């Protein structure tokens, strides 16, 4: 494989883009900056520190929110032969511990906000030997608990190193699966390098982009951060969804990576602005004045928005990918763009179709799922990845998606929900006989057939109230995107197939069998 590994292109960028801003972020209302050569210097300290602490060829989890410390830790790991395991810091504690443990992580970079959970984490994950707080210093430092700052101080005095090869696993990304248990996608150094190389579309060195997606997602990490660094982009951190519009004004990005839900939110602002104000002025106010390009992915985008944003001088380019492909499979780019499609396949991937299902082969396709041979064999056959999506290529070579084979619910904010996982939990409640979760209008809906024994004698109102209370209690334990916002109470059991499994295609039929 000839593509440059993360370590190599970061070193190149430190020279080629010396003096340019690499990362910008806000502390209060002040903008902070790290230049390309400074970023690499920090990355090298972390790298040496990790190896000096004795970690080579091991998994290291990162649990935190988008920050310059997060990316320093990530680059520190990714430029050694260790494997980074980025995890969602908003996950429920038990689920987080399960993934840290299942990934066999030997160390964890942890957000300061989660410091109080350290004793529970260490108890639940006996293979973890070291925790470094991403920000600040621990309340009580110990042999097991340190900080990123102390790790860098150690690395500064050490030349311990363990350079990666293209075959080393750079990252394990956990993804939702239809089996209900999330799968760890193993991506090699070479997989990532090839995807970054194939994505070499650039707005130019020194051009700002605003990072608004969660950094632990492959789509964000590779498209925004790694691709951005390889191209000399100025990556600006949006500290909160709440302030996305304000931050567009502060950082004045030229391009952004978004999921459809964000595009819909921004569109509402455009649509509801005073009609007497010229569109250029509205665009300036909403987009910060420089935005030209939005890359969209993670879920289907209605082409309506592409037309509408064009009126305000912003091109929306849709792409398609999945973690298993590092993650981008195809993308619209300026010069090769067809609204409604997800663009042309990248130069390093081949596509073929089996009963309409999209199969992908190429140098950015994952090696396997971590310790899940059955799931790996199901997804990868003869080197072809079965995406579970249906689609076709048109006469000009643009890919169109027209359905999903799997039951996985992809909300328009890009989050993947495995319905079976939620159903299994809800089914434990004694009032619930059968339950199916669907995705509707950007939210989740529970279709429930009440248990006839436990709900005997209840009228419709009482039943609905009781089931709603069950959902409310369930929701209080879930992150926002996994909350169930709709409820439909059934009169009759679901229609089943020969093996007594509920037919998901017929859940709207509510009649006696």
């Amino acid at each position, binding site marked *: 494989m000839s593509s440059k590994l993360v370590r190599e292109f970061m070193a190149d960028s430190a020279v080629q883009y010396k003096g340019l801003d690499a990362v910008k972020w806000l502390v209060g209302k002040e903008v902070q900056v790290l230049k390309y050569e400074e970023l690499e210097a920090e990355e090298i300290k972390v790298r040496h520190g990790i190896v000096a602490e004795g970690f080579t060829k091991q998994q290291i989890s990162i649990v935190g929110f988008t920050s310059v410390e997060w990316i320093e830790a990530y680059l520190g790991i990714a430029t050694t032969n260790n494997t980074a395991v980025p995890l969602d810091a908003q996950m429920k504690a038990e689920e987080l511990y399960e993934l840290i443990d299942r990934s066999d992580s030997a160390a964890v970079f942890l957000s300061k906000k989660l410091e109080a959970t350290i004793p529970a984490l260490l108890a639940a994950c006996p293979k973890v030997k070291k925790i470094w707080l991403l920000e600040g210093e621990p309340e009580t430092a110990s042999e097991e608990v340190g900080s990123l700052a102390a790790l860098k101080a150690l690395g500064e005095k050490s030349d311990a190193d363990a350079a990666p090869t293209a075959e080393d696993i750079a990252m394990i990304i956990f993804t939702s699966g239809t089996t209900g248990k999330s799968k760890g996608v193993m991506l090699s150094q070479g997989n990532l390098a090839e995807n970054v190389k194939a994505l070499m579309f650039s707005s130019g060195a020194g051009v700002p982009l605003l990072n608004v997606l969660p950094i632990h997602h492959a789509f964000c990490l590779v498209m925004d951060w790694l691709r951005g660094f390889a191209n000399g982009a100025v990556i600006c951190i949006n500290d909160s969804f*709440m302030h*996305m*519009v*304000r931050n567009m004004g502060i950082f004045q990005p030229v391009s952004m990576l978004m999921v459809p*839900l964000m595009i*819909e*939110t921004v569109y*509402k602002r455009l649509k509801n602005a005073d009609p007497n104000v010229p569109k250029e002025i509205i665009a300036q106010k909403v987009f910060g004045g420089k935005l030209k390009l939005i890359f969209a992915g993670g879920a289907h985008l209605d082409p309506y928005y592409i037309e509408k944003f064009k009126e305000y001088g912003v091109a929306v380019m849709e792409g398609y990918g999945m973690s298993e492909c590092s993650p981008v499979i195809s993308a619209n780019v300026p010069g090769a763009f067809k609204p409604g499609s997800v663009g042309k396949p990248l130069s390093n991937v081949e596509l073929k179709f089996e009963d309409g299902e999209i199969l992908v082969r190429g140098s950015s396709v994952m090696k396997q799922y971590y310790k899940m041979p059955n799931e790996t064999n199901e997804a990868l056959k003869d080197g072809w990845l079965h995406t579970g999506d249906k689609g076709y290529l048109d006469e000009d070579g643009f890919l169109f998606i027209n359905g999903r084979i799997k039951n996985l619910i992809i909300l328009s*904010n890009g989050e993947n929900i495995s319905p079976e996982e939620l159903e299994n939990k809800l089914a434990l409640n004694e009032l619930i006989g059968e339950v199916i979760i669907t995705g509707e209008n*950007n939210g989740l809906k529970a279709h429930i057939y009440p248990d006839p024994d436990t709900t005997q004698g209840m009228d419709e109102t009482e039943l609905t109230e009781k089931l709603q209370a069950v959902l409310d209690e369930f929701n209080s334990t879930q992150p926002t995107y996994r909350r169930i916002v709709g409820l439909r109470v059934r009169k009759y059991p679901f229609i089943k197939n020969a093996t007594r499994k509920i037919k998901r295609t017929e859940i709207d039929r509510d009649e006696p069998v």
Partner: protein
Amino acid sequence: METEMKFKQLLTQYTGLQPENISNDMRFREDLSMSSLDFMTLLGDIEDEFDIEFEESDQVHITTVGEAIELLGRYL
């Protein structure tokens, strides 16, 4: 009253409804068709407009316009 008017003016950016047509018992999601992200960016607008900072735990419990105005009152 002034706070309520200012708040409802911010809401028009998401709903297209004039402030006088927004009643306090309206629910953000069901009646005003706002997504969770619309709601979060609305909170951001409020913080900027009124120069306040919400506690994360407070944000979870708001479902209606009236509840948001009441919460806002506690910060001013």
